[in-house]
């Protein structure tokens, strides 16, 4: 099944599954099998923002004033976010586009990845503002063992799927001997790896990102690094949408709404899904340990972050129709809601830093005591 950039077959769009059907040809949106992806594209486009809109000059002062262990928390968190968005900025394109069969889904995947590239650019914007030499932070992402360990768990499902999918595109189904190694390519295994990849993407967007958001917002909750929190807020708004997109894909597959074989595979993978969620939760807890190794910060410590990991993992796995993994609990970080709420997002540059917007403003509050020394 060699990949072609323009499939010349004629086929019925509505008969195509999301993946592994006919390859797409005309990018037309008049016939849509799953209209939701069109809605997601529209929404994502309406969210468009640029990192430069947010002024970070105060963040530099804030960062220099932070104690060393808080600088460690901030920078490590930022490195982790950079890693996650580096992966998400390219992997959905590389992995899913060659096997997608619906034009609206294809365009959603491209729109989705594109918005992740904005996130990546915003990390550079943040890093440039807080340290004189950005390379110090970026270079460490591939060197620091705590970060690279995370990179493995984030990318292993993508890589396993892409490897098999490449053989499938070049050689088709069957048993092949490649460089002396026997590779078996079956549709069943391809779909299984694709499903697990989608689950791991869901975990990345629904749990890993949210844990990192909690750290960013914890600084802003103390009125530190507020420009950074503004940017993360815009990122969080996008991620909530991506998460919805992935949940739709997973649920459409699991409910057999477009491919009966895929539904069986989803059923078969149920234990794997629980395992992926459990592993991710454990990895996030280990990460919390590393973040707070030199000390906690006001409002957030290792225990609270671990509780948040359990809470958010329960939420996300329940959304996919699974039982909760951890003991049910209420949100240990209730203030995070106001940071995650999109009504609260303002992107007008003159208002994006509230403090500077108020410089030179007039205090219009008048009290009777103000007239105390006033006589006629």
């Amino acid at each position, binding site marked *: 099944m060699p990949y072609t950039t323009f499939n010349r077959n004629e086929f019925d769009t509505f008969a195509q599954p999301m993946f592994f059907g006919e390859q797409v040809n005309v990018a037309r949106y008049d016939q849509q099998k799953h209209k939701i992806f069109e809605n997601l594209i529209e929404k994502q486009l309406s969210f468009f923002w640029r990192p430069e809109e947010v002024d970070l000059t105060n963040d530099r002062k804030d960062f220099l004033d932070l104690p060393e262990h808080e600088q460690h928390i901030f920078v490590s968190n930022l490195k982790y976010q950079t890693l996650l968005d580096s992966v998400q900025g390219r992997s959905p394109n590389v992995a899913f586009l060659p096997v997608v069969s619906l034009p609206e889904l294809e365009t959603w995947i491209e729109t989705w990845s594109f918005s992740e590239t904005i996130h990546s650019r915003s990390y550079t914007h943040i890093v440039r503002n807080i340290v004189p030499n950005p390379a110090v932070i970026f270079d460490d992402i591939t060197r620091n063992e705590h970060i690279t360990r995370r990179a493995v768990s984030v990318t292993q499902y993508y890589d396993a799927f892409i490897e098999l999918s490449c053989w499938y595109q070049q050689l088709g189904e069957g048993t092949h001997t490649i460089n002396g190694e026997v590779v078996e390519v079956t549709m069943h295994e391809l779909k299984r790896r694709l499903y697990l990849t989608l689950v791991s993407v869901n975990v990345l967007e629904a749990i890993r990102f949210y844990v990192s958001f909690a750290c960013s917002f914890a600084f802003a909750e103390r009125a530190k690094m507020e420009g950074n929190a503004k940017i993360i807020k815009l990122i969080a708004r996008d991620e909530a949408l991506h998460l919805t997109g992935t949940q739709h894909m997973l649920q459409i597959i699991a409910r057999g709404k477009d491919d009966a074989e895929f539904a069986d595979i989803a059923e078969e993978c149920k234990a794997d899904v629980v395992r992926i969620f459990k592993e991710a939760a454990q990895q996030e807890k280990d990460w919390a340990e590393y973040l707070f190794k030199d000390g906690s910060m006001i409002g957030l410590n290792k225990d609270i972050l671990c509780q948040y990991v359990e809470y958010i993992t329960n939420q996300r796995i329940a*959304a996919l129709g699974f039982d909760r993994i951890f003991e049910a609990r209420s949100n240990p970080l209730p203030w995070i809601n106001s940071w995650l709420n999109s009504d609260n997002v303002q992107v007008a540059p003159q208002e994006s830093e509230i403090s500077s917007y108020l410089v030179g403003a007039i205090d219009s509050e008048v009290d009777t005591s103000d007239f105390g020394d006033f006589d006629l």
Partner: protein
Amino acid sequence: MKALNKRREELPGQSASSNDNDWFELDGRSNDQPDFDLEPSSAESADEQRQAELYLPENDPEHPEPTPQLELDGMAPAIYSVMLSDGREARFQYANNLLESLEAQNIDVHFQCREGYCGSCRARLLSGEVHYTSEPMAWINDDEVLLCCCIPRGPIQLELLN
């Protein structure tokens, strides 16, 4: 300035020649005003705690303030009962959506985006029917509703999922 002087002369019980330092210019600087800097000397964020504000409606969505519009008898929205599976009871009349209505009645519901795409306020609809005021984008199962973008069409029973 002339007009101001004239005004001063007219004030009862005061003579124009008395206390010269009493006199001020409407648009000038007073002599006790300190110098001020356009730019603050220190980072403003250090001075006070500023928390993220959540701009939820200040008024109670279920008890709207009276409007100057004519009241039409019998035209008030119907009141529907909203029963929760844990036994709590609420009613829906004026609010824009079920999420607002429940919050106004002190029932905590998980939320994030409040506009139908994040799926945080998903709840199970045990009985009754709802009407979506805007199209929900988040994934919802057949027996579930998204509270942030629907209103009841009659008495309903809900199970909150958080």
